[in-house]
């Protein structure tokens, strides 16, 4: 009964189809349920006389019969369907989105337009270099800008995402040691690290050793000295760390690692605190990966695409992934003749569309503007932290950088969990912070306001949090039953995992 979902007000006296049995359709039916046999959404150019069919050209045995279940809709139906879906989403452009460690800053709309310019969007990756000099120069300029921003010597824009940048960096560490005839098996990771760090280590063939941060939330050089050995290839450090505080001993940590021949890998996930504030290269980092979808404002896209450039010091340059951009009197071109390179991580050059957007952002802000962006991001985080301190005290007494990690006593006082607080925030039209992370803070709320949100927005967030605090004490059910104002109420994630339904299937004929 595909028609059931088309008009939301259809009464309940219709018989549900097999697909919908016991599963009432919410706002928007699936595209497959809107199909009508024989309907079409596009027209192809008319066939010419003498055109041969696929079966004639290839033989019937190479051809499939049909695309069973594939959608059959008109263009307006398709457009309406996806626009309706769009209305079910929270998004940075619509809502305050203080998701810690994710840097949900405003994504300038002009950047999307620039990436769509015919000279950039229409460029085939196999285009001969002499016909693509503008794109290659843009890549060269972006590499140079990121080297300056990070204080590093060489940059590759190749990795498709931050996590792929991590893997790239770790494989380079591995290649570097091997070239020197050393096989090192271990990588040190702090207990506050993002989950991608240990996962990347495993993929890169390393065993993880966990370094404990001290009671104040910092890593101590002494702890690193205790753990480092000739079997340690590198240490991955996020700075500021996931508590949002600046690692005070980062330079001593770098020295302790270098003394034993190990590398410092700086996870640039929190770069939005560091622009014009402190350069990874000056901290002693050998490698840093950047997430262009964070500090450099490319849209998050509901989970990608991003880009994860890696910046390295001179001694690691030979190991950067292929291809490398080079420049000669003939202009720019890509070079794949690098015997020490770790090789490719993906097809072609890089996520060029994201590089264009990020480069436009860097041009617009300039060196001075980038420095101001980080300062205002830090201002916002400290402002929210100070204002929320009475109800949601900071998990650390140390100064916050671009994000703050808060805790609360509502679990104890009212049996209200961090998850429930987060869900209640949705009713206020605010996307919740990152929750239960870092793992070292029980019930953590990790808040990253970013520099593009105004004081009024931060004030309304603080007021919402204060109100939720009061509600939790006086009317806890309201918090526990949140959200009430969204297209769906609390989603049963346990059910989804217990009985996985991962695709739509055509209901059997009655």
């Amino acid at each position: 009964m595909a028609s059931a979902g088309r008009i939301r007000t259809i009464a309940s006296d219709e018989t549900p189809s097999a697909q919908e049995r016991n599963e009432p359709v919410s706002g928007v039916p699936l595209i497959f349920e809107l199909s009508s046999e024989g309907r079409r959404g596009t027209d192809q150019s008319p066939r010419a006389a003498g055109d041969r069919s696929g079966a004639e050209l290839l033989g019937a045995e190479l051809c499939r019969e049909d695309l069973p279940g594939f959608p059959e809709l008109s263009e307006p139906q398709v457009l309406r369907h996806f626009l309706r879906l769009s209305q079910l989403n929270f998004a940075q452009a619509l809502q305050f989105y203080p998701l810690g460690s994710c840097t949900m800053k405003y994504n300038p709309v002009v950047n999307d337009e620039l990436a769509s310019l015919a000279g950039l969007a229409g460029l085939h990756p196999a285009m001969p270099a002499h016909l693509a000099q503008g794109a290659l120069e843009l890549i060269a300029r972006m590499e140079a800008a990121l080297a300056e921003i990070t204080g590093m010597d060489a940059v590759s824009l190749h990795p498709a995402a931050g996590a792929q940048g991590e893997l790239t960096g770790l494989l380079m560490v591995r290649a570097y040691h091997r070239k020197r005839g050393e096989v090192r098996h271990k990588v040190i990771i702090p207990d506050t690290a993002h989950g991608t760090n240990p996962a990347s280590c495993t993929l890169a063939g390393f065993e993880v050793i966990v370094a404990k941060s001290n009671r104040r939330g910092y890593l101590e050089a002494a702890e690193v000295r205790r753990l480092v050995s000739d079997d340690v290839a590198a240490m991955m450090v996020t700075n500021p760390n996931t508590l949002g505080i600046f690692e005070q001993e980062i330079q001593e940590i770098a020295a302790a690692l270098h003394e034993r021949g190990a590398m410092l890998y700086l996870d640039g996930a929190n770069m939005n605190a560091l622009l014009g504030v402190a350069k990874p290269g000056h901290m002693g980092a050998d490698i840093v990966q950047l997430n262009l979808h964070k500090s450099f404002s490319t849209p998050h896209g509901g989970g990608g695409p991003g880009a994860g450039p890696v910046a390295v010091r001179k001694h690691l340059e030979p190991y950067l992934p292929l291809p490398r951009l080079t420049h000669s009197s003939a202009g720019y071109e890509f070079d794949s003749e690098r015997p020490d390179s770790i090789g490719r991580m993906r097809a072609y050059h890089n996520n060029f569309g994201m590089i264009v957007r990020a480069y436009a952002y860097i041009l617009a802000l300039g060196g001075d503007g980038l420095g101001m962006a980080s300062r205002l991001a830090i201002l916002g985080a400290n402002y929210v932290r100070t204002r929320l301190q009475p109800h949601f005290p900071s998990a650390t007494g140390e100064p916050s950088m671009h994000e703050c990690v808060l805790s609360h006593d509502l679990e104890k006082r009212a049996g209200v969990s961090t998850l429930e607080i987060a869900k209640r925030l949705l009713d206020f039209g605010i996307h919740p912070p990152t929750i239960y992370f870092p793992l070292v803070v029980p019930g953590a709320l990790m808040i990253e306001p970013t520099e593009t949100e105004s004081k009024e927005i931060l004030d309304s967030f603080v007021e919402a949090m204060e109100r939720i605090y009061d509600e939790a004490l006086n009317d806890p059910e309201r918090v526990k039953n949140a959200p009430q104002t969204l297209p769906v109420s609390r989603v049963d994630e346990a059910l989804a995992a217990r009985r996985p339904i991962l695709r739509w299937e055509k209901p059997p004929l009655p």
Partner: protein
Amino acid sequence: MPHTDGDVAAMLETIGAKHLDDLIAHVPANLRASAAIDLERGCSEADVVREISALADRNTGASGFVSFLGGGYYRHYVPAAVRAVIARAEFATSYTPYQAEASQGTTQAIFEFQTLITQLSAMEVANASMYDGASAAAEAVLMARRLMPKRHVVALSRALWPDYRATIRTYLSAQHGIEIVEVPFDDVTGATDIAALDRIANERLLCTVTGYPNALGIIEPLGSIAETAHRAGALAISATAEGIALGLIRAPGELGVDIAVGEGQSFGLPLQFGGPGVGFMASRTTHLRQMPGRLVGQTRDRDGRRAFCLTLNTREQHIRRERATSNICTNHSLCALAATVYLSLMGRSGLRELAERNVELAHRAADVLEASGIKRRFSGPFFNEFTLKLANPMAALEAAERRQILAGIALAPDYPELSDALLVSVTEMNRGDEFGPLAAAIAEVR
């Protein structure tokens, strides 16, 4: 940045600081002293547009040329409705859908993407997407390794795209004890040499990876390859860079493939100098637990309504950390959305017709070339891409470029044994009257 001087002052006062730099006074002084970013000062939006447009204009190959470039990324028409949907800020500026209640748009669209990929590939499960086809192929081999940890030999068809083979090698470089073997292609047909594969098909073989169609344009005998792999107890992986082909040729799932991956750029994404594209991965339900990447599942909300959320994330890095199936955190969600809209618009009959048009045009082009005495290098069946046999492919490319034609891709840099080969791709973006001039340009230097 929205802050007025008054806002900054008021916020600093609340915090109890005098100046913005007081907030970073705890950062070691030597780091702060050298932190200034030496780039041009910021500029207006108009200046940025002027600057980037000037760079775009210097990409002279992007317009004014008739193009036959393919080789892994394909020129297809992108319907305006696709761009209209992915430009919506509600999709473009949302985050990974961790908060299901605030992400039903994204999660439902991903569920639809997963379904479309299973239909196209005739497989049972598909994930929420990967970075691109090459990294998806590499992740598929790692997945095979988790499924059969005791086997060590990975057989890569030499007719798999060079970038895919190189990416797989990089991803596997840190895996202990893996041996990569390249299976040659048949010099006559251009298809993977099944007899050569058969010789290494034993209890050590982990998996085969085959392009479908392959890097030489040939539609591989995927069923026989899968059968050979299965006889040895190994897994068969297929990689498809030209997704439109799956509208016409038999689906990997019908041919016994265990993991089908590919690149979805043909489904509504611009060429964009090679990225971002979108990888896809589909497999059998029995292999689900070893699949990398995000998955969206259908469930219910507290009021019994259908809802969608990320699921089975105990496989993933943020829960399992060093024991995760992959380090992948995001997919290429917005690109997967573009593919979802594209495939919905094309629909059951439209995708088939588009594929038929591609195969017909490509064969017509091959016929026109043949009539001018320009032969194909390989005899195997092809979809919309074929390899020409030329005495001097580089000279042919130069002659064609003088006539404003990008005739294709010379294969010699990646295949020294194919110094006589030019790969030509023909899509619905080409017109029948372009084939004569292509033949004339190439014939000029033959």
